[in-house]
């Protein structure tokens, strides 16, 4: 039997689960404390956070923590690997689209009007200078970064690692981005349902998984109306506007949550061309795309299984089992 602790953090619902054994409550409390502390360091909505200090220092060198350095190095690697589709430097465009405060504040006070002033050319994340030896970075003048999903993935992975040192098996989920360590007590698999992006009360696909990480990006979750237009938080770095592909949500299963986070976002922004091309070259991850026309595309590992299965029907085992 597992002990479960759920609470709100990072603007979403967090679930911690670990095998009930001596000390598990202390482990859950420690993992929660870590998550809440990390959120205070990497949130762009908190002016006293380390990330806010970094954004305020654009143009100058800024000393940073070892953890932030690790996240920024991962950002740089994925920015190159995705040919820029993953770009944390889209923050000015995100603010211009109306996401300049937390979703809680937007829902409470409404969205900011779109700036009529033409936006200056946006810095790309590739312009960042990282000095690993001296543990400092320099953002290009005018550059602002949003670590968003990748920071959440890093935090959840670290929390799961912390929890696993105390009690296995265990799982950590933050708003549906999750890490599983070990197998559930009954020796079977972790069960994960993928929501219908148009009706979160319903699941459209069920997965049975072994130790792995799962992340989902969706254009229907964090949405708002700005000047009569429905907007969402996934900015296409190529246009500086919310992505306009045919995908409603992309779920990625991978060994690492940071990888899953990045690829879920990149596939959703890049669209069909990305998940039939780039993702098909990554046999270490699986993806499930819910398209606006109702189709579900999966791949690349499951492609060979599909002819005998209706992909809309509930429950088949992903290759990580």
């Amino acid at each position, binding site marked *: 039997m597992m002990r479960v602790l759920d609470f709100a953090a990072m603007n979403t619902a967090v679930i911690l689960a670990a095998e009930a054994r001596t000390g598990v409550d202390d482990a859950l409390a420690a993992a929660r404390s870590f998550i809440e502390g990390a959120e205070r360091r990497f949130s762009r909505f908190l002016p006293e956070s380390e990330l806010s200090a970094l954004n305020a220092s654009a143009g100058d060198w800024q000393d940073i923590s070892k953890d932030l350095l690790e996240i920024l190095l991962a950002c740089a690697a994925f920015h190159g690997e995705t040919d820029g589709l993953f770009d944390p430097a889209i923050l000015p465009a995100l603010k211009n689209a109306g996401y300049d405060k937390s979703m809680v504040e937007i829902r409470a006070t409404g969205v900011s009007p779109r700036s009529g002033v033409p936006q200056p050319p946006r810095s790309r994340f590739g312009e960042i200078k990282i000095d690993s030896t001296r543990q400092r970075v320099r953002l290009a003048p005018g550059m602002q970064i949003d670590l968003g999903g990748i920071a959440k993935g890093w935090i959840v992975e670290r929390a799961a690692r912390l929890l696993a040192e105390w009690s296995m098996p265990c799982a950590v989920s933050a708003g*549906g981005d999750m890490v599983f360590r070990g197998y559930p007590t009954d020796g079977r698999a972790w069960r994960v349902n993928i*929501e219908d992006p148009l009706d979160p009360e319903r*699941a459209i696909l069920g997965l049975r998984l072994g130790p792995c990480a799962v992340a*989902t990006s969706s254009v229907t979750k964090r949405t708002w109306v700005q000047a009569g237009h429905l907007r969402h938080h996934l900015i296409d770095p190529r246009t500086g506007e919310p992505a306009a592909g045919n995908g409603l949500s992309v779920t990625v299963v991978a060994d690492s949550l940071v990888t899953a986070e990045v690829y879920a976002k990149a596939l959703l922004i890049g669209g069909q061309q990305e998940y039939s091309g780039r993702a098909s070259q990554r046999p270490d991850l699986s993806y499930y795309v819910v398209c606006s026309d109702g189709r*579900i595309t999966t791949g690349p590992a499951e492609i060979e299984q599909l002819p005998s299965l209706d992909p809309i029907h509930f429950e088949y085992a992903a290759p990580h089992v």
Partner: protein
Amino acid sequence: MTRIRLTSVLLRTWMALTSVFSFLIGWAMLAHAPKPTQASAAAQSAARPLPTLAPLAPLDLSGNANGAASSFTHLDIQQPQGMFGGAPIFTTGGS
């Protein structure tokens, strides 16, 4: 001529006797065969009549309750709140 008559008598006699013996053998076999009224109790219980089946529900080809076309089939799975084999069931849908 006499030889032909003799052969004819012998043949008739053989046919008559063969017919009589065949009739008697058949009689004896039927007389010793189990009759329907002598079936075992197990066979009788297996032969009980089946209950009448409930009528089938009417077939709905409309796709959903209001008859509108559905782009894809939803599975009526409730949002997982419970546990499965001692572990929670998770949901992913973005945040």
